[in-house]
């Protein structure tokens, strides 16, 4: 396990606050993600997990607090710098968010249009697209439209798109939500394989206990906008606290 005192985090959130009108969603949330780590943030539906992860990529502006990714504070960044930094972050959306007017190939080519220079030893778009699709086992679906794919296949294509720029950090927003248990397991194993292959740091937002058990190195429970508890899956699942236990009961 990483020792927080010695290793510098690749991503750090400090005292994050976000409100929507009278609804105070995040009330001083904090986290650190270390290199090569799989950090799971668990919370009930509507607890602010997705808001937190969208603050991390600059889709939502937090009310206060700091977000540091690779030693750069993204809350004070301009659009250009933020766009450049985003090429180092892969993001898997809850509903896959594939561009439905484009084929699978065009979906994967889209992030490459402006950022080919970010990839070391760039050999061509075609090779990268094929490699990304092979990683998720969907090389045959290259010319299909998103509407022709099943939910699980869409999630895998979205994962391939998140990986195409070879990011160092990957954020998963509810990666298994809406999938059947077998497909959910496939996605979880795919996430593990990708983490091993590319040595990425992953932040996984979920309320799926199976996903957390298989993939997490460390977990944070987000309750009422704050870090309610932190530890490994084993530590938290053995806790006597009824609030924590509620997460692990099936």
């Amino acid at each position, binding site marked *: 396990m990483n020792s927080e005192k010695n290793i510098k985090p690749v991503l750090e959130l400090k005292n994050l606050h976000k409100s929507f009108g009278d609804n105070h969603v995040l009330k001083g949330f904090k986290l650190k993600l270390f290199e090569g780590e799989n950090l799971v943030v668990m919370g009930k539906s509507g607890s602010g997990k997705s808001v937190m992860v969208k603050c991390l990529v600059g889709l939502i502006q937090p009310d206060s607090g700091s977000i540091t990714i690779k030693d750069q504070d993204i809350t004070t960044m301009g659009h250009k710098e933020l766009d450049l930094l985003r090429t180092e972050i892969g*993001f898997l959306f809850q509903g896959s968010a594939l*561009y439905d007017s484009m084929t699978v190939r065009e979906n994967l080519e889209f992030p490459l249009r402006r950022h080919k220079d970010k990839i070391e030893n760039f050999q061509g778009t075609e090779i990268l697209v094929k490699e990304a699709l092979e990683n998720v086992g969907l090389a045959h679906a290259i010319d299909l439209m998103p509407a022709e794919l099943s939910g699980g296949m869409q999630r895998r294509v979205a994962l391939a798109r998140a990986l195409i720029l070879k990011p160092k950090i990957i954020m998963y927003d509810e990666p298994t939500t809406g999938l059947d248990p077998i497909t959910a397991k496939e996605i979880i194993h795919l996430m593990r394989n990708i983490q091993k292959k590319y040595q990425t740091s992953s932040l996984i937002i979920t309320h799926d206990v199976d996903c957390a058990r298989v993939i997490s190195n460390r977990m944070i429970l987000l309750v009422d906008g704050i870090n309610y508890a932190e530890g490994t899956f084993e530590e938290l699942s053995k806790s006597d606290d009824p609030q924590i236990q509620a997460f692990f009961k099936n």
Partner: protein
Amino acid sequence: MRSLGTLLTIPDLNHSYLPKSLLNLIFPFNKMNKANAIILKTKSFFAEIGDMTLFAGRFFREVFRPPFEFRELLRQCYNMGNRSLLLVGVTGFILGLVFTLQSRPTLMQFGAESWMASMVSLSIVREIGPVIIALICAGRIGSGIGAELGSMRVTEQIDAMEVSGTNPFKYLVVTRIVATTLMLPLLIIMGDAIALLGSAIVENLKGDVSYMLYFNQVFDALKFSDLLPATIKSVFFGFAIGLVGCYKGYHCSKGTVGVGEASNSAVVYISMLLFIIDFIAVFVTDIFFEI
């Protein structure tokens, strides 16, 4: 202690079992609520106009700044221009046909059938053609943009573009507004030409006027000062269709209901805006070209 403002807006009488007349007697505040609602709606309308102005400002900042999305611009021009040809053509043809048929008896009463070509051409080129075709395009293109961008917003596709390091405003909004601004004048010119053809057919069948004579009369009647303001006006019509459609879609919320609302309100706002632009254009044309 509650403020007067909250006291005036407390009773929610919509779900009461008492008769409405009695409720209005007991709670005169209900009328206040209606007044408040009108004030709030007016305020939000002007706030939206302000937002739209800022949106237009962002368009002008982004449109001249590289990188340029030429391929997407061409795709949008094709979608909006080429795919509207049939609709605009049919509308223009029927417009010219009906306008001539309806005007004929009146002109005949005054023995002024020979003025038909000049009257129809001036009316269509200066006013009816651009406005009707722009309204048709508001329905086809404006609502289409509103619905497309709206569904992209609610399914997080716009967020996905932003996260992948591509500026979605430049890719989705700038290209669409430029495409409508370029395509609408062309569609209107084509629609006007087809409307005149429709009119010529009626004149040929009903009044034994040859096509050559009819179009000679048309070109004699039309001046540069008729064509230029109409074309400039149609550029603004195109801009308004693109701007409002994109604004409504880009700021869509509330799921699939929001997509429907975005598409619907885009058409309503565009139609209103087209008439305002038309009014201003006629006013300005009158100053510079002395109609």
